[in-house]
Every structure is written in C-alpha cells, then in structure tokens.
C-alpha cells in the first residue's frame, strides 16, 4: 500500500515536471494576452505603468462603441473579408485541382510541379511583399512594360507619318497627322495643340530626325500610370492576387498527401466500370477528403483573418490607409502616433471572436453537409 502511494506521488511529480514548463509558457504567450486584451479593452489605460504608476480604471464598453462608429474599422473588415474569400474560394479549389491533376497522373512530373508551386510559401513574406510592390508600383515593372509598349506603338505611327511626308517635311498636314496620332491625355498640356505643337516641331532641322522622333514619343505617347495600389476600390486586387499566388501550393501539398492515402483499388474499379475523371473526382476523391478540406478551410480562415506581414511589406496599409486589414488597423492604433491601447485591444479581441465564429460556421457546414467518409 505504501509502495503504491510513493509510486503515485512519483508519477504526479514527473507529470507536473513535464507539463508545467510548456503550460506556463503557453499561458504567458496566449492565455494572458487574451485576459489582458479583455481587461484593457474595457479600460482607459494608455501606457505607462499598469501597476503602481498611472491611474487607470475600467470604463466599460465605450471602446467597442468607438470601434463600430469608426469607418476605418469597417473598411479594414471589408478588406479582410476579401482576403478570407480569395483564400477560401481561391486557394482551396485551385490547390485541390492541381493536387488532383498530379494525383491522377493527368500531368506527368508531379513532383516537379508540386515543388515549384510550393516555392513561394517557403520564402519570407516580407521579401515577397517588397518584391510585388516593386512589380505593381507606379514606377514598377508593369508600368515599365506597358509604357514601353505604348511608346513603341506611337513610334510606329510616327514612322508611318514621316514616311508619308518623305522625311521631316513640316507642313500643316504633317502637324495635323501628328496631333491626330497623339494620345488625347498627353495633348492636354496644350491649350491649342495644333499651333503650339507646330511651334515646337518647326524648331527641328531635318538632320535631327532621331532626336525629333524620341522627343515626340516622350511627349505625345500614352502614359499609363497604374493606380492598382493607390485607388481605394482597386488597391486590394494586387494584394488578393499575391495572397492567392503565395499559398495555393500549401493546399496543393496538403490535398495531395491525403489523396495518396486513398485506396487505389476503388478508383481503378470505378475507371474499369466506365467512370470519367469528373465522376472519380466528385464521387470518390472529394468525399474521402471532406474532413481534410474542412481542416484546410479552418487553417485558411484563421491564417487569412490574421494576415499581417505580407500586406505590411507590400503597402503598409497605405496609400491613405485604404489597404488596411484588421491586424494592421490594430497595429496602427497601438504603435503609430499616440497609442490607443484600449481600442487596439478591442480590435485584437474582435479578431479572435471573428475567427472563432468563422471556424464554428465551418464546423457547422461540415456537420450539416459533410461527414460521409
């Protein structure tokens, strides 16, 4: 009897020695912050010392009232919903289709495709965010390509006009043709395009043909300035595109690994019975992956609701805060300018609540329609 008591005590001691370090760290990093955010979101604490310093007290739900009244909150929420939607209804289906193509060997070299498509997920989103910003920026890659194309198109028109005139023979008809070929927006710098342009053109001597040509291209060709990242209603599009670009490979890997667990004999039998690829996908592969898909959806929702670093590196929430999502909205309230800790904590808590609601809904959908494994 005494032996078992010692045995039990020994067991207990070992149990707690093994569990406590992990549990304390977990409380420190996850549980306490939640408690803190609950308390502070109901208070007026705004920095300084929480204990034995500044006076602060519980003031009630006014932070939440402020949150609901702030249009920026609704914008951030809307942007966040876009990210969640493109993730759940973009990354997941695409990842599934790619995984299926590889799994059924509809495309060969599956290993290669998988390796390539997962690559962005392994690179720091900070690096990728800066990279994509350089592609979409007003002076970035896309603008460069577009403007080179417009310039060369206008150059060709100019060449045709010059050929018709037999060189730099400046007549009224010649100037008219140049004006007609020019981009209307570029011509807006003139009050009277024809006369003003004629004044400019007559200054060139026939020997200056190349200079004339390049000057005219610079002056009169269409200039395309991308407002991707600067216009409120389209600024989220590049971010959504990059979100899709970045993580589709993750779901490809996830789905493929689970497809490979399906009993091949079932699919072989179905194929012999004359089932097409569509039927195999719809009736065998999709149902046997329903649990995995739900898990992936939860992963996806929770990840995209918390997306921060990629957008932070790409736009910093700008321009003029139009690409802020909830986490950036929280960050700017806490760390930019005067701190608004109570409001920031209210935002933190709402993000947590939103994720639990969305995850709960996903589980509900699974219960209702899924679970036929």
């Amino acid at each position: 009897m005494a032996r078992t008591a010692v045995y039990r005590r020994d067991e207990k001691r070992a149990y707690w020695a093994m569990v406590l370090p992990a549990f304390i760290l977990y409380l420190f990093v996850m549980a306490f912050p939640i408690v803190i955010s609950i308390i502070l979101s109901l208070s007026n604490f705004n920095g300084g010392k929480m204990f034995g310093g500044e006076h602060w007290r519980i003031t009630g739900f006014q932070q939440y009232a402020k949150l609901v009244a702030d249009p920026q909150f609704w914008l951030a929420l809307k942007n966040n919903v876009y990210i969640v939607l493109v993730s759940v209804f973009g990354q997941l289906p695409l990842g599934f289709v790619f995984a299926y193509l590889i799994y059924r060997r509809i495309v060969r070299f599956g290993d290669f495709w998988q390796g390539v498509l997962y690559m962005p997920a392994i690179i720091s989103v900070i690096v990728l965010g800066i990279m994509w910003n350089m592609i979409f920026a007003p002076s970035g890659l896309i603008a460069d390509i577009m403007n080179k194309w417009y310039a060369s198109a206008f150059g060709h028109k100019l060449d045709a006009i010059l050929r018709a005139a037999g060189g730099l023979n400046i007549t009224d008809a010649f100037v008219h043709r140049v004006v007609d070929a020019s981009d209307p927006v570029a011509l807006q710098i003139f009050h009277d395009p024809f006369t003003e342009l004629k004044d400019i053109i007559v200054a060139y001597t026939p020997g200056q043909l190349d200079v004339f040509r390049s000057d005219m291209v610079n002056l009169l060709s269409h200039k395309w300035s991308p407002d991707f990242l600067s216009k409120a209603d389209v600024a989220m599009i590049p971010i959504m595109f990059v979100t899709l670009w970045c993580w589709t490979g993750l779901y490809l890997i996830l789905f493929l690994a689970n497809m490979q667990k399906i009993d091949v004999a079932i699919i072989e039998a179905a194929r012999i019975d004359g089932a097409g690829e569509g039927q195999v996908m719809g009736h065998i592969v999709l149902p046997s992956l329903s649990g995995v898909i739900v898990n992936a959806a939860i992963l996806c929702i929770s990840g995209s609701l918390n997306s921060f670093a990629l957008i932070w590196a790409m736009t910093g929430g700008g321009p003029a805060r139009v690409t802020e999502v909830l986490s950036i909205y929280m960050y700017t309230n806490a760390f930019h300018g005067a701190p608004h800790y109570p409001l920031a904590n209210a935002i933190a808590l709402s993000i947590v609540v939103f994720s639990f609601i969305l995850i709960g809904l996903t589980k509900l959908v699974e219960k209702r329609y899924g679970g036929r494994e």
Partner: protein
Amino acid sequence: MRDAVRMTYGRIAGALGKTLAYLVMGVFAFMTVSPIIWLLVNSFKSNAEYRLSKLALPHDWAWVNYPGAWRIGEFDKLIGNSVIYTLGASLGIIIFSLLAGFAFAKIRSRATAPIYGSFVIGILLSIQSLMVPLFIEVSQLDKLLGDLFQALHLMKAADFHLFYNNRVGVLLVYIGSGLPVAIYLATEYIKSIPDALVEAARIDGAGYFAIFRGIILPMSVPIATTVAILNITGLWNEFALINILVSKTSLQSLPLGILRFSGTMMADYGKQFAALAIGMLPLLIFYLVFRRQITKGVAAGAIKG
C-alpha cells in the same frame, strides 16, 4: 464500329484534357517562378540600368550589389540572430512538446483533459492577433521586475529588460507560440507507442525521465523532425511578433532587417534586390535540399481544429 468511334472520341477528349491540364499547370508554374527569377536577375543590375529597363537582362553584371548590400544591411548580424532565434526556439519547442506529450499520453492524470484541451484550443488562435496585448504584457513585466530590482538596489528600473529587446524574450514567445501544434502532434504520436513498453520499464524500476530519455525520445525522432521542419521554416520567416518585441537593430532578425533595409535604401534598387535575394536564398536552399521532408512535414502539421 460504334465502339471504335467512341474510343476515338474518348482519346481526343483525353488528349484535349491533358493539353489543357499541362497548359494550366504550366501557366501557374511560370507565374510562380518568373517573379522570383526577375528578382534574382535584377539583383545583378546597377541602379541606373534598372531605371532604364526593368525587364532586360543586365548588361554589366553588377556583382558588387551583394557585398554592398551585405555590408550596409549588416546581414552577418541579421543571419546570426535569425539562426539563434530559429534553432533555439525550435529546440525548445521540440523538448517541451515531447515532454508534455509524453505526460499527456502515458501518465494518467485528471489534469490532462483540461490542460491538453486548452492546448488544442490554442491551435485555433493565431498569435498575430494578440500582438498588442502581448507587447503590453512583456513591457509591463519588464517594468514590474525592474521596479523590484531597483527596490532591492540591484539596478535602475529603466535599464531592465528581460522580455522586450532581449533575445530571451523573443525565444520564450516563439516557444510558447509554437507549442500548441507541436504538443498536439507529439501527444498523438506518443499515444501510438505501446503502453506496454512504458509499463515494463516502470516495473523494472525506471523513473519517468529515464523512460523519456531511453524509450520515448529515440522513438519520437520522426515526429520531432516534423515539428522541427514546421518551426524552422515558420520561425525563420516570422515577422509580426519580433516586430513588436525588438527595436534594437543589433537584435533584429532577417525579415525585420530586410524591411528596414528596403525602407532606407529606397533609391538604390540594385542593392535592394540583392538584399531581397540574400533574404530568400537560405530557406530556398534549405527547401531544395530537404524538399521531401518539408513537403511531408507540412502535410502532417497543417492542422487547425
């Protein structure tokens, strides 16, 4: 005859489908790789050349971008810090999760249900959403401990930092944030180790820590590898948390340093691209070497709920 016609149609449809599949796959693979290659190519252009053309291959290969960016960005320090954070935290996560997983799986206790349950709920939480309260927590703890040490006449309160701007703080936060998933994986894995092995050792008089070292640890190498891979790739790229925990440049990790670099070197594109390339190459190489293990680990560790 009819069968033959049907077969031909089937074959044509199959060929069409295959072509379409390759086309879609090819387009996506191209879209995935081309920006990354574009970045690498531009890292060899001088600033003037980049301004002239953003798409063309470099005329003169500006290798100097790399040493330049390395020196200005202090990449030796950044990479050193990243290695410390990544390996230190991964090691901590592995040890703590295996220990706790062993206790949850093999020692019966009424505490297991609530504590293990709380870890599983923690999987659903994304810690980025808690960065503001976490920042307040660590700075308040520093202040409290500082006041305590000042009262004991050990040091001035303002000088004390255990969590904020301290590698220890970063490591503790990283370990804590990685634990839920790791503990879930470790517990489920250790559950599959036969109880009889543990019981036999107990009857032979072995203590639990001896059993952990002698039986559990060697048998848990596969799950430890999975946990290591998940955390190495995740922590190397981690940004949101270290961004609020560290402001000193000497303690910054690679992602923080790269963002700072790109903010201050706006005008020098060549070096900027070189810095981005330096930032992505370590993990890209890691990926090329351990691709199979990473793919397997990611598939096994992608759990939420």
